[in-house]
C-alpha cells in the first residue's frame, strides 16, 4: 500500500509536459535561427515582469522581518528573523513600549480607522459618480435637446483642467461650508460626476442597440422607467468596469485627502501612510512597520485585481473609438 504514490506521480507529470511551449514550437528536424530571437524576447519580457512584481515580494519579506535584524541581513531573500510584530504595530495591537523596542515610533496610528475611511471615501464617491454620471451620459447620448453637444464638450473640457488648479478654490469652498476634516467634505467634489465617467458611459449608450427602448417607448413607457428598468440593467457590464476603475482611482487618491482630511475621522490610508512615514523615529526608520502598512494599504486593490483582473486589463486601450 505504500507504493501507491508512484502511479500518482506519473499522471501528475503529464499535463505539465504538454504545456511546455518550446517543445510544441520546435520543428522536429532541428532549431531555426529564429528561436534565438524568441528566447531573447522571452528573457527580456521575463525581466520586465520581475521588475514589476518582485518589489512586492520584497515589501512582504521586509514586513515579516524585525527592524533589528534587517540591517545585518539586508540581502537575505527570506524574512530576517520572521515575525508578525510589524503588522501588530500597524494595527495597534502592540503596546507602545514593545513598539519602541522593535524600532517603531510608539505613536498610535489607527490603521483600522484609516482603512474604514478609505473604504467609505472610495465607495461613496464611486457609487455617486457612477450613478449620476450614467444619468447624465444617458441625457447626452439618447435624449434630444438644444445645446446638448455644446454642454457635453464643456463637461469633457474639464478633463483638461489640472486637479491642482481647482483644488485650491475647492479647498476654500469646503472650508466655507465648514466641512474641512469631515467625510462629507472629502467626498463632495467627486460625488456628482467625473468627466471620464460621463464620457465612458455615453460612449457605451451610443453603441447600445435602441430596439428594446423603442419598443418600450411605443408601449408608452417614460424615460425614467426606460432608464432605470431597461438601460441600466443592460449596462451592468460597463458600469461594473467603470465602478472598478473609479474605486481604484479613489483608493489611490492622495492630494485632495491630504488637503481636506487630516482628522482621525477623515484621514484615508494614503495620507495615513505619509504620516506613518514622517513619524519614523530619528536615526533608523521603522522599515518593517512601514512596509507592513504599505502592504495593508495595497491589499484591497490586490484583491480586486485578483477577482476582476481580466475586466481591468481589457478596459485598457479604451478610448471610446472602438
Amino acid at each position, binding site marked *: 500500500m505504500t507504493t501507491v504514490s508512484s502511479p500518482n506521480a506519473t499522471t501528475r507529470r503529464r499535463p505539465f509536459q504538454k504545456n511546455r511551449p518550446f517543445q510544441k514550437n520546435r520543428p522536429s528536424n532541428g532549431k531555426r535561427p529564429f528561436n534565438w530571437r524568441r528566447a531573447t524576447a522571452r528573457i527580456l519580457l521575463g525581466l520586465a515582469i520581475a521588475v514589476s512584481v518582485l518589489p512586492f515580494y520584497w515589501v512582504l519579506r521586509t514586513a515579516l522581518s524585525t527592524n533589528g535584524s534587517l540591517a545585518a541581513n539586508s540581502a537575505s531573500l527570506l524574512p530576517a528573523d520572521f515575525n508578525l510584530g510589524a503588522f501588530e504595530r500597524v494595527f495597534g495591537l502592540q503596546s507602545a513600549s514593545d513598539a519602541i523596542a522593535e524600532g517603531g515610533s510608539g505613536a498610535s496610528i489607527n490603521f483600522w480607522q484609516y482603512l474604514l475611511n478609505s473604504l467609505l471615501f472610495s465607495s461613496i464617491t464611486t457609487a455617486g459618480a457612477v450613478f449620476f454620471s450614467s*444619468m447624465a451620459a444617458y441625457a447626452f447620448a439618447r435624449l434630444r435637446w438644444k445645446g446638448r453637444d455644446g454642454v457635453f464638450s464643456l463637461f469633457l473640457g474639464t478633463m483638461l483642467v489640472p486637479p491642482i488648479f481647482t483644488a485650491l478654490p475647492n479647498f476654500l469652498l469646503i472650508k466655507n461650508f465648514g466641512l474641512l476634516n469631515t467625510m462629507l467634505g472629502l467626498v463632495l467634489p467627486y460625488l456628482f460626476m467625473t468627466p471620464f465617467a460621463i464620457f465612458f458611459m455615453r460612449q457605451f449608450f451610443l453603441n447600445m442597440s435602441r430596439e428594446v427602448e423603442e419598443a418600450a417607448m411605443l408601449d408608452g413607457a417614460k424615460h425614467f422607467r426606460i432608464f432605470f428598468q431597461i438601460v441600466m440593467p443592460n449596462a451592468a457590464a460597463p458600469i461594473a468596469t467603470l465602478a472598478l476603475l473609479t474605486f481604484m482611482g479613489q483608493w489611490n487618491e492622495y492630494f485632495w485627502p491630504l488637503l481636506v482630511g487630516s482628522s482621525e475621522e477623515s484621514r484615508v490610508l494614503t495620507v495615513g501612510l505619509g504620516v506613518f512615514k514622517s513619524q519614523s523615529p530619528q536615526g533608523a526608520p521603522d522599515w518593517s512597520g512601514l512596509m507592513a502598512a504599505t502592504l495593508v494599504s495595497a491589499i484591497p486593490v490586490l484583491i480586486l485585481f485578483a477577482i476582476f483582473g481580466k475586466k481591468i486589463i481589457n478596459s485598457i486601450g479604451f478610448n471610446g473609438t472602438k
Partner: protein
Amino acid sequence: MTTLTKQPDSGLSTVGGSRKSRKRGKSGAGFRAMGDLKIALFFIAPAMIGFVLFYVVPTIRGIYLSFTEYSILGDPEWIGIKNYEQIAKDPLFWNALGVTLEYVVINIVLQTALALGLALLMHRVAKSTLVRGALLLPYLMANVIAALLWFWMLDYQIGIVNQLIEWFGLPRVAFFGSEEWAIPTQALINTWRHMGYTALLIFAGLQAIPASVYEAASIDGSKAASTFWRITLPLLRPVLVLVLVVTVIGSFQVFDTVAVTTQGGPVNATRVLQYYIYQRAFAQQDFGYGSALAVILFLILAIVAFIQMKFLRGSQSDLD
C-alpha cells in the same frame, strides 16, 4: 476625437429621429416640441451641480484669486498682476519649472521607449492575460505606495538596490539624498509605475494594425527593421501621441511621490511645480500667489496639449 462628434448625429438622425417624430405627431404633447429638454434637465441635474460647483466656479475663482493677495484669514485683496510680476522674478519658481521639465523629459524618453519595447515583445511572444496582468500591477498601486516601496528598496544604507550595486563593484548611490540623483529617482519611480500601463496602451494599438499590412510588406521583401520604422511606427502614431500627451500632462503634475519621500529636497532639487504651489498656498498660507502659480501650470499644460494634438495630428489615423 473625430468619431466623438460623428456618432451622436448618425445615431439620432437615422433611427431615433424618424421614430420620435412619428410619435410626436401621434401624441401631440406640448412639451415634445422643445425636444426632451425637461427630461434631460432631470437627468443631468446632479452632474450639473457637481460640474458648476466643483469645476466651473473654482476655475473662475482660481483665476480671480491669482490677481489678489489672500491669506485665508482676511478677504482677498485685488493687487492686479503683482503676483505674476513676482513670479517672473522668483528664483524658486524658475527652479521648480526647470526641475519639473527635467522630470518630464526623463519620463517621456524612458517610459515611452521602455513601453514601446515591451509592447513589441508582448506582441511577439506573449499575449496572455497573466503576462499583461503582471506588468500592470505597479500601475494599480497608489503613488504613495510606489514611493514608499522604492524609498525602502533604494535606501542608501540597507536598500536592496544598493546591495546589488555594491556586488557589481560600483559605489553606492544616494538616490534620494543627492541633488543630481533626486529627480531621476523620482522619474524612475514614476516610470516603474506607468511602464506596464503604457505598454498595454501601445500593445492595443499594435493589435489594431491588420496582419495584411505586414504580409504586404514581407512580400515586398521588407526587412524587420525597416518594417518597424516605415510601417509599425507610423501606424502607431495616434496611440503614441495619446501616450505622449498623457505622460507629459501627468508628469507635469508630479506631487505624491515627492511629498512622501524628499519633500522638495535635498535643497531645492525636487521642489517641483505642484509641490511648490502646495507649499506657497498651504504651508505659507499665500493663496493668491499659489493660485497664480497654478494658473501658469494650467497654461503650460494647455499649450502642451494643443501643440501635441495640432502638430502630431494625434486624432487622425493612417489606417482609415
